[in-house]
């Protein structure tokens, strides 16, 4: 079975957050502070040789998801297409998944006390379309699909680990094309 995941090209990303907003739009998230796809900006190096980079992250649709392992009701489940999905009806808002996910992916909606997260636009994919973030990116820095195919499409330089990416040991299915400054151990979060 294909292992599905997102690809992100950090050499192209301009941190514009079009993906983040397209995702909020598709999921109709009006609450500030809740994003299913999140763009964060970082800086490495020192004046006069600094490097700004951005990371567009979302659910890694892990091989061994901590959220599904710890969800007491089975609301968070790995589905047949390999993605991790959430059943709102079963969710009791206990936030065990919020606590257990090493990447801060599941988000609590206080309005109805349900947790939700990226579904990799499963309905769109069943209709033969891309996840909305992929089609939203003005820089064509995002892709989604079979991770083996993504590796062969984007070359051997792609990685799944970077200093700024927490390693939760959950077999995260994400591929990143690293920019030089993303490889530096000393990096800082910045607000842009």
């Amino acid at each position, binding site marked *: 079975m294909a292992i599905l995941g997102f690809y992100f090209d950090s050499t*192209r*990303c*301009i*941190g*514009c*957050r*079009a993906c983040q*907003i*397209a995702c909020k*739009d*598709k999921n*109709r*998230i*009006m*609450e*500030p*502070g809740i*994003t299913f796809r999140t*763009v964060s900006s970082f*800086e490495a*190096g020192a*004046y*006069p040789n*600094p*490097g*700004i980079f951005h990371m567009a992250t979302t659910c890694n649709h892990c091989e061994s998801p901590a959220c*599904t392992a710890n*969800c*007491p*009701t*089975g609301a968070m*489940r*790995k589905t*047949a*297409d390999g993605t991790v*999905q959430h*059943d*709102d*009806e079963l969710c*009791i*808002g206990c*936030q*065990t998944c919020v606590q257990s996910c090493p990447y801060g992916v599941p988000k*609590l*909606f*206080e*309005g*109805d006390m*349900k947790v939700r997260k990226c579904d990799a636009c*499963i*309905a769109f994919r069943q*209709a033969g379309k891309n996840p909305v973030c992929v*089609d*939203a*990116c*003005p820089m*064509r820095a995002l892709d989604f699909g079979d991770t083996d195919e993504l590796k062969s499409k984007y070359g051997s330089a792609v990685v799944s680990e970077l200093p700024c990416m927490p390693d939760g040991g959950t077999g995260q299915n994400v591929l990143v094309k690293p920019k030089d400054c993303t490889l530096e151990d000393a990096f800082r979060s*910045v*607000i*842009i």
Partner: protein
Amino acid sequence: MSSMLEKVSGANFDRRVFLKGAAVAAAGAVTASAVGCSSGNQEPQEETVEASARPENTLEEVDLWTDLPDPDAEGTWIPVACWHNCGGRCSNKALVKDGVVLRQKTDDIYADEEGQGHFQNRACPRGRSQQQQCFGADRLKYPMKRKNWEPGGVNVNGELRGVDEWERISWEEALDMIASELQRIYGTYGARSVYFSTYAYGPYSNILNTLGGYVYADTVESYGNWKMCCSAYGTPFYNSNPDIEGANDRFDLPNAETIVMLGGNPSWASGGSPSYHFARAKEAGTKFVYVGPSRNITASMLDARWIPVRPATDTAMLLAVAYVMLEQDEQKQLIDWDFLHTYCVGFDAKSMPEDAVLDENFKDYVLGVYDGVPKTPEWATEICGTPVEDIEWLAETVGKQHKVMLLHSYAAARSNGTENLSQLFLTIGAMGGHMGKSGHATGAMYHYEAGNAGPQLVKLGSATSAFVPNPITEVIPGGETWKAIVDGHYTYCGTSGSAVNGWAPKEERDIDIKAIISGANNFLQSKMNVNDGIRAYRKVEFAWANDYKLSSSCQYSDIVLPVTTKWEGYTPDTSSPVWINRESQVITSPVLEEGLYEAKSDQWIADQLADRLGLDRAALFPVSEKQNYFNMIAGAKYFAGGKLMYSQDSSALLTAAAKAKAAGEDFDMSGYTEEWKPLVTITQEDIDKFGDVVGEPQEGVIGFDEIRAQGVYQVEMTDDKRWIGYKDFIEDPEKYPRPSKSGKFEIYCQTKADGINSIGINPEPIKPYPNYIVPKEGYEESFADWSAKERGEYPFQMYTPHYLRRSHTTLDNLPWLQEAFENPVFMNASDGEALGLKTGDTVLVSSKWGQVLRHVSLMESVMPGAIAVPHGVRTDIDPETGIDTGGSENTLLGPVVSNYFPQVSGYNTCLVKVEKWTGEPIPYDYEKTFIPSV
């Protein structure tokens, strides 16, 4: 209509159910107006569930997530407008069901293709958030009147402007009041007492001009000093944009070894495709260099080598580049002398123009012959802060041995004292011979032409509108406007112009403004010197503003009218024909046929006023908005072959031909033909079905319904549509002269010197060649004692980058954008640490002219001594302290005009100090709303 209102204002922002079983409780709690709710960082509940209650967690097929309905089948996709002053005109569509927007998407008509193929013109985050402007909870719903103001000029209570309460009034009352106030003020005080928005907008300016005209503020705004004299130097001035045609199209970018950007940040300022075009050049091997006070987002993405330069000191840095090129030319052959002597005048004594009256030239100025100061890197670095080795490296990099594109935004020239920067930039490009050839360029990157320059290949037709000229020639230099109204006098200097047309010798004049009118504009926020702006507003008898939301200009007015966005009704985007990527044209449709709430279009409002004022409505508004919408589509044309030229160049050619003919001389017009054909096929059935318009059937290449459904048309690229800037001039300078007096690029320009010196606001005459000018409020003035290097009270240089959260002041209020872009002020990390600051702290930034609060972001990518305060955020004055807690850059900018050109507003030259704020930290913008209670 009321059911529509409920749907739009409620359901549109309710969470929608997308997945089977994903039922949502508490509907309505997540409306756009709920922007103040907390952000979900709640402690987990102490709740456990029996393990037996857990379904099997397996990889087996789960019915819940199979056979989901196609999300696109929920509604109809409508191509929608994103009409702001960013120049993108990208493709946006809204999925609409019963007038409710379910979701947006961008261009999916075209695919990205290799070579000369199409590209998807994808929207930026602003376009993606457009629905929050059109259907935002902060939309103005009704006409409003300020409670303690009455028409008649007696009960004005102007001091309450900005803090008064609002009363809902009817359209009848609002229009009657505006009409009677206009009649009273024009009748009592005359047209010189009425001040209207800088950017004259058709419907309102026609009304005011019919009544006698109005005073306006003239400033070159975005273009800074780059606009002044550009035609006199021989550089282009097309569609109000200086120097725009000098660059090449997107296909030629990878042919450059190096692209040097002087200022410019397309990733923020020109959203959509420009950054993508540049990224493709990077991936093809082109190296980038970025010159500016920060290594910005674009430069970072492009892995550009950063040449740091302090704000407003680019002229000093480039003079040193010229010096090094001259010094090292013999050894390294850096200068293209043939180019300088064939296509330029005034570089050296050998190439002086005929009209020169001063026996000086650029080369000898740089070498220090006239002032004893050679413009060495060591001389420059004291001013600009650029390391000497960077200047030396840049000089060699831009030499004639390399294929180089020199591209600039106008940012560096939006600084006082940069009167000579554009001429100097042109000179550096000429020294390297970087014009008219593939892989070489010297020109602007701006708006839609960033990364893809060249004449448009597909254009909408024009809207038909009346034009009533303004009988008043009273023009206040932009930077002085508010102070002029407060003080009652100002220095008149004529108007801005691309050559010397319109400039006038300075003259002190009195002015007594009684009415301030803001339409299609938010000029209290977008002009420098907000504090005087508020004083000006509070001084007058009548202030009227229109907007979608309670802008700053509305907040300080007496009558506020709600206008429709371009998602309501057939309000043509009259700027669309020109403000767009050259290869594509968007054609949008309304989401709602009528205005939301009680909002009305500008044309409806103006027409109603015309009726009340007894003006000739048919003459003022000859064509309905829907007819104009139709006419723009029917008039759309595409380039169908021949010789592609900018319209100013083709008209110059025709003028030259006519002149030759009159003189009985031969003029070779061979090879000059261009053919444009109608784009859209329109049948009588289309016209009848569309309704309420008249038109003739016509034959085009795409159907009326088809292009309206597609929303975008992109041309097929062919070799005859490619663009290399200045190619004609370089190949045949006699036939295609530049618009300067000599017909060449003028490195010595007598027209410039005579024109500028005739204005006379600076006692020191400017040189005809680009010499260094010490800018007002520049780096030098940040010192109490320059020679002792003793800093003054305001040691930081503020500059004001365009920010991706908004386009100037518009879109700044949208929650998704406010969340994505917090709008901090940016300063160097070491500078911040020395002040005891850390990222996220609230800082007090103060200038001679005002004080603002904002969060700070400390970055290594900002040059020490510089602070970037993003342009366009909403002012929010604390009535107790007078501090702008919104953090507007224009609160910090004062009534200062550039050294020689009063119409240049030096937005990037302002001296400030920065302190840690010890009071309450300021909230995030998405925690605030500006919704009037009526």
